[in-house]
C-alpha cells in the first residue's frame, strides 16, 4: 500500500468506526444513567433488539425515519418499564430480570419479524449521509467525520447532554446519590423509586434508540439477533468508561474501531487470518479490556441492590 492508499484506508476506517460505535454510544450512555442510580440492567441486548424492531416496523409502515427512531425509543422504554416494575417495585433480582428480558427480546422480535415481515423481503430507505458544507471537503478528515448521517452526528450531542444532565443538574446530582446512598436521598425528601424509574427509562430509551439506529441508519433490514451482542459490549463499555458519558463516547469509538477493522480486514484479500478470528475481534477486546481495566473503584456502591425503605 502506498501512503495515499493508506490514508484513504484510515479515513474510511475512522468513518466506519464512528458509525459502528453509534449504537454502543447510545446504549452505554443509557446504561450509565441506570447504573449511576444503582440499577444494573443487563437486559440491554433485548432492549436494543426491541428498539431495532420497533424502529424498523414504524419506518416500514410510515416510511419516516424520525418516526422510526421515536418508535425505537418508545419500544425500549416500554421494555424498560417492565424491567423497572420488576426490579424497583417488586424488588426482584436485577440480573435475573435482565436475563429474562434478553431472552424475551430475542424471542419476541424474532417471532414478530417472522410473522409479519420476513416474507415481504423488503427493506426500508435508511438515513442518508448529510455532508457538512466545507468541512466534508477536507481531505481524509472530511471523509471520516463529516459525511455521516444525522443519527451518527447526534451521538456527540447526546454524550455532551448526558454529561451535563448527570453532573450539572439537580436531577443528575440526586440520581447519582441514589446509586451511592439511597437512604440519604430518602431523608432529603426525594423518592428513590421515582429516580430509579426515571434512570431506567432514560437508559432503555437510549438503548432502544441505539437498536433503532441499526435498522434505520446502518442496515436497511431487521434481521433476527441484529444487535449481535452489542448490548453486552455496551455493558463492558460502561465499566471501561468508569461510568462517564464522555468516556463512554470515546470507549465506544474504540470498540467501533475494532468492528470496523474486522470488517475491513476481511475485505483485504492479502490477509490470510480466518475470518472467524477477525469477527471475534470486538468480543475478544471486550474481555481483554475488562480484565485490564478491572475498575470497580468508580462503580456506584449500591449497584444492583434494591432499596428497602425503613
Amino acid at each position, binding site marked *: 500500500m502506498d501512503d495515499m492508499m493508506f490514508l484513504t484506508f484510515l479515513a474510511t476506517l475512522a468513518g466506519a468506526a464512528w458509525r459502528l460505535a453509534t449504537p454502543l454510544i447510545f446504549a452505554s450512555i443509557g446504561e450509565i444513567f441506570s447504573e449511576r442510580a444503582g440499577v444494573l440492567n443487563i437486559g440491554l441486548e433485548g432492549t436494543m433488539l426491541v428498539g431495532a424492531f420497533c424502529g424498523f416496523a414504524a419506518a416500514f409502515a410510515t416510511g419516516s425515519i424520525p418516526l422510526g427512531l421515536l418508535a425505537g425509543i418508545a419500544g425500549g422504554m416500554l421494555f424498560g418499564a417492565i424491567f423497572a416494575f420488576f426490579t424497583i417495585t417488586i424488588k426482584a433480582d436485577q440480573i435475573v430480570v435482565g436475563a429474562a428480558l434478553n431472552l424475551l427480546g430475542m424471542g419476541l422480535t424474532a417471532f414478530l419479524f417472522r410473522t409479519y415481515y420476513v416474507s415481504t423481503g423488503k427493506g426500508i430507505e435508511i438515513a442518508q449521509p448529510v455532508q457538512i458544507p466545507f468541512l466534508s471537503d477536507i481531505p481524509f478528515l472530511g471523509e471520516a467525520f463529516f459525511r455521516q448521517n444525522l443519527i451518527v452526528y447526534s451521538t456527540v450531542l447526546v454524550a455532551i447532554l448526558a454529561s451535563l444532565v448527570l453532573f450539572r*443538574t*439537580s436531577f443528575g446530582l440526586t440520581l*447519582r*446519590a441514589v446509586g451511592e*446512598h439511597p437512604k*440519604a*436521598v430518602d431523608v*432529603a425528601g*426525594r423518592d428513590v423509586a421515582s429516580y430509579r424509574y426515571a434512570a431506567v427509562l432514560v437508559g432503555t430509551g437510549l438503548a432502544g434508540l441505539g437498536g433503532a439506529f441499526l435498522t434505520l441508519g446502518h442496515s436497511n433490514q431487521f434481521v433476527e439477533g441484529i444487535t449481535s451482542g452489542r448490548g453486552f459490549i455496551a455493558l463492558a463499555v460502561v465499566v471501561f468508561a468508569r461510568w462517564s458519558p464522555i468516556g463512554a463516547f470515546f470507549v465506544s469509538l474504540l470498540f467501533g474501531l475494532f468492528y470496523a477493522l474486522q470488517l475491513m480486514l476481511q475485505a483485504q484479500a492479502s490477509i490470510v487470518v480466518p475470518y472467524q478470528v477477525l469477527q471475534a475481534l470486538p468480543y475478544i477486546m471486550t474481555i481483554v479490556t475488562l480484565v485490564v481495566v478491572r475498575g470497580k473503584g468508580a462503580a456506584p456502591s449500591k449497584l444492583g441492590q434494591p432499596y428497602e425503605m425503613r
Partner: protein
Amino acid sequence: MSQKPFLRVENIRKRFGPIVASDGVSLEIEQGEIHSLLGENGAGKSVLMSMICGMVRPDEGEIVFKGQSVRFNSPREAIRQRIGMVHQHFMLVPNLTVAENYILGQGSPLRVINDMDEVHAKIRELSDRYALDVRPDAIIEDLSVGEQQRVEILKVLFHGIDLLILDEPTAVLTPQETDRLLSLMGDLAKDGKTVVFISHKLDEVMRVSNRIGVMRDGRVVHTVNVGETNARELARMMVGRDVRMELPRSPEPPGHIVLSVDKLTCRAETGLPAVRGVSLYVRAGEIVGIAGVSGNGQTELSLALSGLLPVDSGRVILNGKDITGLDPARINASSFSHIPEDRHKHGIVASMSLSENTILQRYDQKPFASRGMLNRGVIGEHTRDLIKRFRIKSRDEDQPIGALSGGNQQKLVVARELARNPDFILVNQLARGIDIGAMEFVMEEMLKQRDNGRAILLISTELEELFAICDRILVMFHGEILGELPPDRTRLDELGLLMAGQTNQPALAS
C-alpha cells in the same frame, strides 16, 4: 405550667411485629433547652426520635410541635417544620462534596447547578459562626468521622432548623471532638435552638443538659433537672439498680506470654505509615490497654493484628506461632478473637440472622456443622443461650441483626467473640453504643476471661474504660508506643502528656 411546650409527644405507640418499640411514650421539650435522653439498649430512644423527625410513622399517638399537631410522612416534611436529626449512621453521600450533599433534593429537579458560590458562602458563614471548620468543597469520603459529623450538624443548620436531634453523636468521637461538640450544643442553645441529645455517657449528659429524660421499655419513666440529680442516680433510674463503677478483680499474677508483637509496621489504606515499629506483649491473665487519641495508628494496629491489613515488617507471635500476615480466617482459627472498632464493616452481616452471625467464623465446625450440613438446632440453642446471658433485646434468633438497636448488635459481637473461648482477645472500642448496665456486665465478663487465663488487648479512647479493667496501660502516639503506666488515676496528668506525644519526663518534674 400555662405556657405550651415547644414539642409535646403524647402517648405514642409503635410496634415492629411483636416488638413494642414505643409503648405509649410521652415527652415534653421546652424551647431552647438541651434535653438529654438516656436508656438501656433497645429502650426505644432512636425509634422515638425517628418518629419525631419523620423517618418512621407512629402507629398511635400525637406529636404537637409549636402548638400544632403534626404528622410527618417524610423527613423532608419535618425539615420544612424546622426539625432536623443527625442519625447514628450518617446520611451523607460519600463521593459528593459537602455543598452537593447540602443541596441534595432541594429545589426543582430540572434546576441547573452552575453557581455554587452562594451555597459555599452560606456554608462558610455558618461554619465560621459555630467554629465548625467545614470546607464546602471537601469530598465526604476524605473526611474523618468527627469531621463528617460536623458536616451533618452543619447540614441541619444549613436547612435552618429549630429543633436538632442528635442520636449518640459522641459514640464515634474522640474526647477532644466530644468536648467540641458539647460546647457547640451550648452555643446552639444560646442561639435559641432546642437540642435533644442521646448518649450513654453520663458525664457528658450531666455536663450539657438542662433536663434529662430516662427511657425504659418504650416509655419515658423519669424526667429530671440536671441540678437535682447525679450520675449515680441516673444510672439507677436507667438500669433499675446500682451500677458499680469500680469492679473487683483478683490479684493473680499474669502467666506466660500469649501474644507478642515485635517492631510491627504497616501503612494505612491511604498508603501513609500508620504503625511505626510497635512492640508489645500480652500475658495470660492480664488485660493490657492501649490509650491514645484516635487516629494515632490504633485502627491500623488492630487491623494488622487481625490480618485485615497487610504488615510491612515486624512479627506477631501468638502462642509461639508466627501469625504475621496470615489471612483473617487462619488468624481467627488460631484462638484469636476480635471485637472490631467498626462492627458494620468487620463485625456483623446486617442482613443475616442473629444465629448466622453467631457462627460466622465457626459455621463449618462441630457442633455447628457435621458432614457439611449445618445443625440448625444446635446453632439456635447456642444463639438463644447468648441472647439470654447477654440480655440481647431481640425478637428471636432468626431476626436479621440489622433490625436490632445499635447497642444490642454490639452485645452480640462481644458475646460471640467471648463464647469462642479464645486464648487472646483483641478489643477495639468495647463500649461502642453499649448502655452502662450492659457495660458493667461486659466488663465483668472481660475480667472473668482474664481470671480464666485469657490474654486481652484493649484499645480504647475512653480512659475510664481502661482504668476500670486494665492491668497495664500503653500509650500510643503517632504509630508508636510511647510508654507504659499502671492503671492509677493519680497519674492521669502523665497519661495525658504521653497521649499528646510528650515524653520528656523532666518537664513534668519542674
